[in-house]
C-alpha cells in the first residue's frame, strides 16, 4: 500500500464566512454550494469542514465532509459543496439555509484520501449521504488516469445519493439497497466480490456509517487489498484538541492506540482500525461470511 500511495500534502485550515450560492434538495438530503475560492483551493477529498449553526443553545460546529470543491478558473468563483443529512437539530437548520445566506466555516480539516502515485484501479464504496466525498474523489482520480469503480448503497432508493457527474466519470457504478427498491438487494459488501473478482483492484476507498466501513474493510482485507476509510465519530472540535473523536487503531509497532479521527483521520487504514473494539463485531462477522467467489452476480 505505502508504495502505491503518495504522501498527502495539505494546506492549513481557514475560517471563512461563505455565501451559500446554491441549494439543491435531493431526497432527504440537501446539497449546499458555498462561494469560497480560498477554501476550495485547499480542499482534498476526505477532508471536512466545521460549520457553525445558528440554533439557540447549540454551541458546537457541525463536522461535514466536503462533497466537492471546484477551484474557480478565469473569473469563475471557487466553490465548496456539502451534503447535509436529515438527522439532528443542527443538520435540520443547515437544511433550511437559503441561497444568499452566510455560513461560518472552519477548514479544510483532517487527512484526505491518499491518491495513488501510479495508474491504479480504485474501488470506491459509499453508504447513505456519507457517500458524498466519493463523488469528489472520483472527480480527482479519473483525470489523473486512475480507473474508478463505484459502489453506492443506501437503505432505500430515495436515500441513495445520486451524482450524475460521478456516474459519468466512473468506469462502473453499482447501487445496492437494503430493501431491494433499487439496484442489488443487499449491502454494499454484497456488490464488492464481483468487482474484486476481476483481480485488478489496487485500492478500496470507503466512506459512510462506521458499520459499513467495518464491513468494507473486512472484505477488502480478506481479498488482500489495501483499504482507506473516512471515519465518523462524535467530534466536539474537529481541531485535534478535545480528544472526543478517537478510534482504536493498531499502529505499526503493533500497539493499539486511540487516534483522533479529526487530525490523524478522518481517513485511516481500514485494516488497522479495531472495529470490534468500536462495538462493530457484528458487521465484521457478517463481512467475513461474504462469499468472495460470488463473481457471477456481477451486473453493474
Amino acid at each position, binding site marked *: 500500500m505505502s508504495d502505491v500511495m503518495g504522501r498527502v500534502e495539505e494546506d492549513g485550515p481557514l475560517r471563512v464566512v461563505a455565501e451559500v450560492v446554491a441549494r439543491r434538495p435531493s431526497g432527504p438530503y440537501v446539497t449546499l454550494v458555498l462561494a469560497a475560492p480560498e477554501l476550495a483551493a485547499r480542499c482534498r477529498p476526505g477532508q471536512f469542514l466545521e460549520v*457553525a449553526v445558528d440554533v439557540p443553545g447549540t454551541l458546537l460546529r457541525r463536522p461535514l465532509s466536503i462533497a466537492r470543491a471546484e477551484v474557480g478558473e478565469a473569473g469563475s468563483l471557487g466553490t465548496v459543496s456539502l451534503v447535509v443529512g436529515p438527522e439532528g437539530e443542527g443538520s435540520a437548520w443547515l437544511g433550511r439555509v437559503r441561497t444568499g445566506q452566510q455560513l461560518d466555516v472552519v477548514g479544510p480539516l483532517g487527512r484526505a484520501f491518499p491518491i495513488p502515485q501510479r495508474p491504479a484501479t480504485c474501488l470506491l464504496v459509499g453508504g447513505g449521504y456519507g457517500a458524498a466525498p466519493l463523488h469528489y474523489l472520483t472527480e480527482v482520480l479519473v483525470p489523473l488516469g486512475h480507473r474508478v469503480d463505484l459502489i453506492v448503497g443506501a437503505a432505500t432508493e430515495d436515500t441513495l445519493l445520486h451524482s450524475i457527474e460521478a456516474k459519468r466519470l466512473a468506469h462502473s457504478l453499482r447501487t445496492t439497497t437494503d430493501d431491494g427498491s433499487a439496484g442489488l438487494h443487499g449491502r454494499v459488501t454484497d456488490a464488492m466480490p464481483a468487482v474484486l473478482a476481476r483481480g485488478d483492484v489496487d485500492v478500496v476507498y470507503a466512506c459512510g456509517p462506521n458499520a459499513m466501513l467495518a464491513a468494507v474493510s473486512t472484505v477488502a482485507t480478506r481479498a488482500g487489498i489495501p483499504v482507506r476509510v473516512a471515519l465518523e465519530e462524535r*467530534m*466536539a*472540535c474537529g481541531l485535534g*484538541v478535545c480528544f*472526543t473523536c478517537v478510534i482504536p487503531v493498531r499502529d505499526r509497532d503493533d500497539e493499539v492506540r486511540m487516534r483522533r479521527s479529526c487530525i490523524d483521520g478522518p481517513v485511516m487504514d481500514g485494516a488497522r482500525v479495531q472495529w470490534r473494539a468500536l462495538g462493530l463485531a457484528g458487521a465484521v462477522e457478517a463481512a467475513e461470511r461474504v462469499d468472495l467467489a460470488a463473481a457471477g452476480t456481477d451486473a453493474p
Partner: protein
Amino acid sequence: MTGTNVDLTTRLAGLRLDNPIVTASGCFASGREMQRFVDVGRIGAVVVKSLTAAPREGLPTPRMVETPSGMLNAIGLQNPGVDAWLANDLPWLVERGATVVVSVAGDSVDDFAHVARRLRGVEGVAAIEVNLSCPNVEHRGLVFALDPQASAELVRAVARASDVPVIAKLTADASDVVAIARAVVDAGADGLTLINTVLGMAIDPVSGVAELANTYGGLSGPAIRPIAVRVVHQVHQALPDVPIIGCGGVRTVEDVVQFLRAGARAVAVGTGGFVDPFATETLREGLAAWMAEHGHTAVSDLVGTATVRDAG
C-alpha cells in the same frame, strides 16, 4: 499590537503574563494542533492537557455528547505521559515562546508527586496546575477535589515536589468550594483555577442508555458560566489575596470581564476554543478594545470590582 494604550499584563502566583487570556487544560492539547490558527507564544499562558506518570489511552467512545449551551465529556485523561511530553512537546512550546503551565493528574498522591518531580528544574515550565478532579484510588475512588483533607494532602505533596508555583484546579461539585480553596491554599497552593467541569449525565430517551461510555462526564461551555462566576466571586471574597484563573464557558469579551470583576486575574478559554479556534487571539484583542472603549487602562484595575446590589 492592539493599537490601544491598555495594559493587559496580569500577575498570577509569581508569574507575569502578557495578557490574561489563557487556555483551559484539556482544551488545547499540547498546543501544536492550534498553531495552525493562533501564535501560542502570544497566549497569556498555555495550560497543557493533564499529564500523568505513564501514558494513557483514556476511555472508550462515545466520549462526548452535546447538551444545551454546552457539552459533556469523559475522555479519561488520554495523554502521552510526562516523559514523552517533556521529550516531544515542551521543547516545541518553549521554542515558540509560550508561557507553559503544566496540568498534572494521577490516581494517587504519589502519582501526582511523581509527575511534579519530573518537572523539577525543567526549563520552560512556568507553573503546575493540579487537576484535583481525579478519582483517588487510595480513597475508594473519591474525587480529591470533593474533600478538603484529600485536596490539601495532594496539593502539599505536589508543592513539596515542585520548584514552580502550584495552582489548584477545583470543582464546583464540592459542597463547600470555599472550604476546599482554604484547605489547598493552607497546604501551599499559590493560586486557584476555578472551575473544572461540572459532573453531569445525559440519557438517550428512546433506548434508555447513557450517552457517554463512562455514564457520567464533565459539563462545560456557557451552561456552566454562571456557576463559575459565582465560585470565583465567593472564593475571591473569602481569600482576596489568592490569585485566581477564572474558567467556565467563556465565549465573549464580556464573559472575560465578568470573570475579572468577580476576582479572576486570568481567564481560561476551554470549550469556546472548540467553536472558535482563534478565541485566544480574538478575546485578547477584543478585551483591549473593550477596555479602551469603557475607559479602563489596566486589567488589574478590573479584578475583583464586582459590586452587589443594596439589600434595601
